[in-house]
């Protein structure tokens, strides 16, 4: 009898502890849930990477102004998409306002995850990158962090190899790199992403785009002439070992960073390098690098590719009005100025960018502003919904070319075959 009592006690203790755990957790959540429905008019969630999270003072100012409370959830950039997708698969809303990278727009639109926003024509004219987030005339997200391809070159290294002129065309760059290598100034002067990742695909895109102003045809297939020319250019760089062997396997950003380490003399890369090349901690050749307009085929390129980040309102949000208010506030001219100061975000409004450069807040900007005015989207029909698959086919083909498994012709055949299949599945 006694033993039975004891045993049942043990069992019940265990199950109670388990249930109690469940219960308490459950009631906690219920309480939170209750709270949020109670005040549903003025509380929203914002999911973004580290660099997009506003400071507490900024958020407090927003709450004071509008009565809307914002709960920020900081998520690694790579993981945001995964969280949004998982939530959407369960018919849940990951957050009211979410980060939207330019490359995600196509699929987010196809999946119906974003609520269209109303944007004035004035704002549209001031933010050229908004075009990237516009599909079927609907603005799906507001860009907050600008990024477009800009070129950088190390003037001292160029001079040491006997080149005093700023390179105007891609042929100039090639000749300069050859001279740099031959003179022994820099062993691998060209920094470009070649491993299997997204940045490698974008490298091919902007190269073809700055050379010929076109990457895709109207029907979504590759413009063979333009893409082949860019691929062959890359192949030349690889064959003549003007790119570093480690660029083939290391991450794209590590390859770009070579210009800061002084082991590369020319880079076409993110706008953020304008500040990187002046940061003693990140750069060992401060003062030697100048941002210049990206070269083209005969003279400077007439257009450059934007790679901005934006925030959008989730279509499953229960609080869309408040969320839209937040987006509007967050991308306003005043906030862009503040965010440049606190989060080093590069403004997407050309008016703000101009102001910051003229004020001297953004230093040594070189051709930054001039280039910003040349921003245009290379996608004739907006970002396609199969972008991720297409990009994967592109970077794998380029990476194989870099590793010597394919030549440019074969790499092109591989990626265009994959793209045609994707289009036919649409």
């Amino acid at each position, binding site marked *: 009898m006694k033993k*039975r009592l004891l*045993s*049942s006690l*043990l*069992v019940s203790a*265990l*199950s109670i502890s*388990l249930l109690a755990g469940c219960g308490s957790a459950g009631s906690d959540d219920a309480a939170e849930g209750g709270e949020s429905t109670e005040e549903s008019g003025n509380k929203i969630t914002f999911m973004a990477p580290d660099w997009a999270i506003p400071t507490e003072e900024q958020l407090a100012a927003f709450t004071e102004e509008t009565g809307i409370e914002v709960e920020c959830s900081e998520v690694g950039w790579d993981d945001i*998409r*995964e969280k949004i*997708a998982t939530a*959407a*698969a369960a018919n849940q809303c990951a957050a009211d306002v979410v980060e939207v990278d330019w490359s995600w727009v196509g*699929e987010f639109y*196809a*999946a*119906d995850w974003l609520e269209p926003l109303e944007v004035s024509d004035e704002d549209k004219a001031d933010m050229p990158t908004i075009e990237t987030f516009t599909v079927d005339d609907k603005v799906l997200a507001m860009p907050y962090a600008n990024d477009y391809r800009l070129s950088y070159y190390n003037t001292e290294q160029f001079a040491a190899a006997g080149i005093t002129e700023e390179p105007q065309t891609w042929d100039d760059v090639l000749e300069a790199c050859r001279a740099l290598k031959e003179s022994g100034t820099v062993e691998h002067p060209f920094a470009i992403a070649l*491993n*299997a*990742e997204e940045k490698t695909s974008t490298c091919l895109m902007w190269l073809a785009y700055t050379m010929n102003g076109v990457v895709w045809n109207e029907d979504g297939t590759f413009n063979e002439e333009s893409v082949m020319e860019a691929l062959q250019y890359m192949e030349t760089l690889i064959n003549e070992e003007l790119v*570093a*062997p*480690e660029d*083939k*396997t*290391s*991450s794209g950003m*590590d390859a770009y960073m070579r210009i800061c380490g002084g*082991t590369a003399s020319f880079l076409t890369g993110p706008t953020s390098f304008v500040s990187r090349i002046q940061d003693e901690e990140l750069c060992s050749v401060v003062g030697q690098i100048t941002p210049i307009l990206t070269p083209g085929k005969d003279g400077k390129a007439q257009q450059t590719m934007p790679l901005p980040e934006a925030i959008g309102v989730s279509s499953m949000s229960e609080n869309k009005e408040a969320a839209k208010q937040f987006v509007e506030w967050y991308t306003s001219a005043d906030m862009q100025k503040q965010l440049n100061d606190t989060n080093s975000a590069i403004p997407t409004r050309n008016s703000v960018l101009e102001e910051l450069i003229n004020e001297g807040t953004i230093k040594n900007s070189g051709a930054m502003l001039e280039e910003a005015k040349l921003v245009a989207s290379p996608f004739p029909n907006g970002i396609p*919904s*199969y972008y*991720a*698959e297409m990009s*994967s086919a592109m*970077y*794998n083909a380029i*990476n194989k070319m870099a*590793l010597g498994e394919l030549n440019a012709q074969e790499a092109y055949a591989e990626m265009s075959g994959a793209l045609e299949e994707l289009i036919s599945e649409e």
Partner: protein
Amino acid sequence: MKKKIFPYLLLTPMILIMGVLVFYPIVATFSYSLKKWKLTAPGDIRFIGLKNYLQILGSDDFWYSMQNTLFILVFVVACTTLLGFFIGTFLNIRVRFSGILLALAVLPWALPPFVNGILWRFVFYSGYGFLNKLLTGIGLTEEPVEFLASRWSLLLVVSIVVVWRSVPFMALVCMAGRQSIPTGFYEAARIDGGSRWQIFRRITLPLMLPFLGVGVTSTSVTAINVFDEIVALSGYSDLAKNILMDSYLTTFTFLNFGEGAAMTYIVLFFALILGIFYLRSLAKEVSYE
């Protein structure tokens, strides 16, 4: 009557946890795998039977990934078991600094996956990697070795990193296994005049077998599910991708949840066959009579 219910009552917490958090989801995933379900086509979700599976099994891509998976599996299980066994034995030797040695031994396992990835990137990268600096430093090579540029060397490097990470678990399990052997057994054997090798073969090995079983099964699962290391060392390259990576890419990058679930199920099925094999051969209850 009550006595009969008693064992089941005691098992209730475990059955609840496993039932709700493992068995239910696994059935749900199976139902996903029978659907055409692509998030970018929300209007077109429907039951398609085994089509996802047939499509995967019929693609060359899948078999390529399968080869990679098998390579990593065989290499990792063999090396981890051997090294884990030796390190477990080594750690059982009592010296003054045993504690510190053990603490060191388990650290590879405790390193967050993200840090782990970065660490190995800086070891194996061709330009500025530690290994290349070392090799050129002592004059073994002139040009940096490109460890990550071809399929098999990349797979080898990935496997070595996975071994490094999974040896601590194996070593701990082996330590536990050794401690389970009643000391009397050894004394008896020594009195009987058995040689060291005989003692090892007749007593240590058979009695440790069930523990090795846990270690080998768990290591196999780890080896089949390698992901972070591959991404850290080769990005999302096709070169060294395994089935799990295929399944991850299909699910989260290409947002094809139906096909992704089917791939996960293929991984699972593969692991299941191995698991049953191990259970049958290693998980028998040993008799200590």
